């Protein structure tokens, strides 16, 4: 609906990679791993952990739904959802390639991408494993 949301997302990831490189002065592969893990933490918290909306007007109608489940009114497999599922996979590929598939980074990156992609699958809509995060 709003132009430029996808582009802003990609640009934020790119600029945070440059920020990590300039702050820590590490190898590019390590920087991509850090961006991938940071992206994992932030998007997991905002898409799959936080529930409800920032507005009080809807009177708590969405208080049991995470933001991922509220997106596009609950319709699965829309363009937005497909794009947002592809982004962690692409980040994983970039991070693994630039670190040459070396050991500790590969393990962490694989965990990040598995958790994120599984959380975004249509079968996981409104599923709460072991009742974690089921309260309002």
């Amino acid at each position, binding site marked *: 609906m709003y132009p430029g949301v996808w582009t802003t997302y990609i640009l934020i990831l790119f600029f945070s990679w440059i920020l990590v490189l300039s702050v820590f002065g590490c190898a590019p592969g390590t920087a991509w791993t850090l961006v991938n893990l940071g992206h994992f933490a932030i998007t997991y918290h905002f898409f799959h952990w*936080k529930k409800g909306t*920032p507005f*009080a007007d809807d009177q*708590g109608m969405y208080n049991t739904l995470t933001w991922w489940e509220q997106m596009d009114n609950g319709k699965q497999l829309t363009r937005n959802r497909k794009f947002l599922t592809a982004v962690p996979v692409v980040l994983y590929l970039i991070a693994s390639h630039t670190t040459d598939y070396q050991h500790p980074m590969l393990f962490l990156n694989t965990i990040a991408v598995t958790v994120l992609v599984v959380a975004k699958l249509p079968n996981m809509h409104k599923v709460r494993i072991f009742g974690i995060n089921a309260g309002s």
Partner: protein
Amino acid sequence: MVRLPYSTALTTLFSYGLLFAFGHLRDFFRRIIDSRKPTTNLKDYAPICLGHEDFYTRRLFNRVQDCCNRPIASAPDAWIDVIERYSNDGNKTIHRTSKTSRCLNLGSYNYLGFAAADEYCTPRVIESLKKYSASTCSVRVDGGNTKLHIELEELVARFVGKPAAILLGMGYATNSTIIPALIGKGGLIISDSLNHNSIVNGARGSGAAVRVFQHNNIAHLEEVLREQIAQGQPRTHRPWSKIIVIVEGIYSMEGELCKLPEVISVCKKYKAYTYLDEAHSIGAIGKSGRGVCDLLGVDPADVDIMMGTFTKSFGSCGGYIAASKEIIHHLKQTCPAHIYATSMSPPAVQQVISAIKVILGEDGTNRGAKKLAQIRENSNFFRSELKKMGFEVLGDNNSPVMPIMLYNPAKIPSFSRECLRLNVAAVVVAFPATPLLLSRARICISASHSREDLIKGLEVLSKAGDISGIKYFPVEQEKTTSVEKLKKIQ
């Protein structure tokens, strides 16, 4: 819809993202600091609101709340006294001082200048205040039906061009209580996507099914009508009991007129009723001030129900519905705002009667015609000058409402505060009332603005616009030198 440039969309999204991130950071630290404080004595009660529900109000709106709810200390004429305020804690609490500043009023809906004392209206209003007192203290059906109310209903019906009218005490309540009285479960309401909140509220409260068509898109309206008539009611597929299409005369956030002749022809073709909300257009546009039907040449008999308010062009309060005698008779027996709500205050009724008489010229002067010509001239002059300066201004010609696009969330308070500093009172509108990325400053022109007032306003808006960086379009160069060269060649 407004097409915004791509780079502006990126920067606006980035700004909102930054505000959002900082808000969350502050909330995070606040939660840590507050967890050390002792709990209150409301220990086992449910919280009034969960922490993230009022996130938008606390972290985004409170930062700029000095631009809203500004108290005024005079009548909202062309110039207005705004009370100066200060805040010591970053806008969490704002305190009034006893000083006021006299500002040019570009925010009030004072289209014909009736908001301040008027030489014909005010003496009559004071007389009716002495005779009927400030309130009828009763509902219309009990003891609140005075001679003035009956006179105004007949006058409004005559002014608008319909057989009968009904008055209600509040403009918002007119829409939100009349629509449920007209249609219920089993009916269909098709409303424009940019309709006012009162119409949305009334439509939801009625229990009818609601479908939305894209703003001013007649092809989409026809598509929605055809699909809905073919499908019928949701599960049973029975035909709809009735279909009402609701549009507005002037859309107050865009300043655009609706395409009324096309809407009427589509509705006649598919036998749907039309409901026209003329809150902003009655009295302000059209040759004799009779609203959008007058301007676009539509016969009032073709619109089934015409609604309007007295707050904008007539300087009073309240609303009306004008329709056929049978519909008004039905509404008088079913509309809750007529049966249970206090009737309009008699001085307010007298103000509207006098204002309509001035507009129609029945007070014996031509002040009404002069006011109508003045507002048309003022609006067209102001809009063309703003466009020449490079602002992105929405709205059609002849419409007295002109929104100036701001987009970026930081430009909203910057523009508003800069204008107030230079003594112009302008209104800015942001997220819940407009889409997220399309915040704007809304200018309302009045017939009581003189040419000097408008020029001063333009200067101030230009300066504030330069500081905030909202001149998105290129400035039109002066065309005089090229015209002179042409004349010399000839």
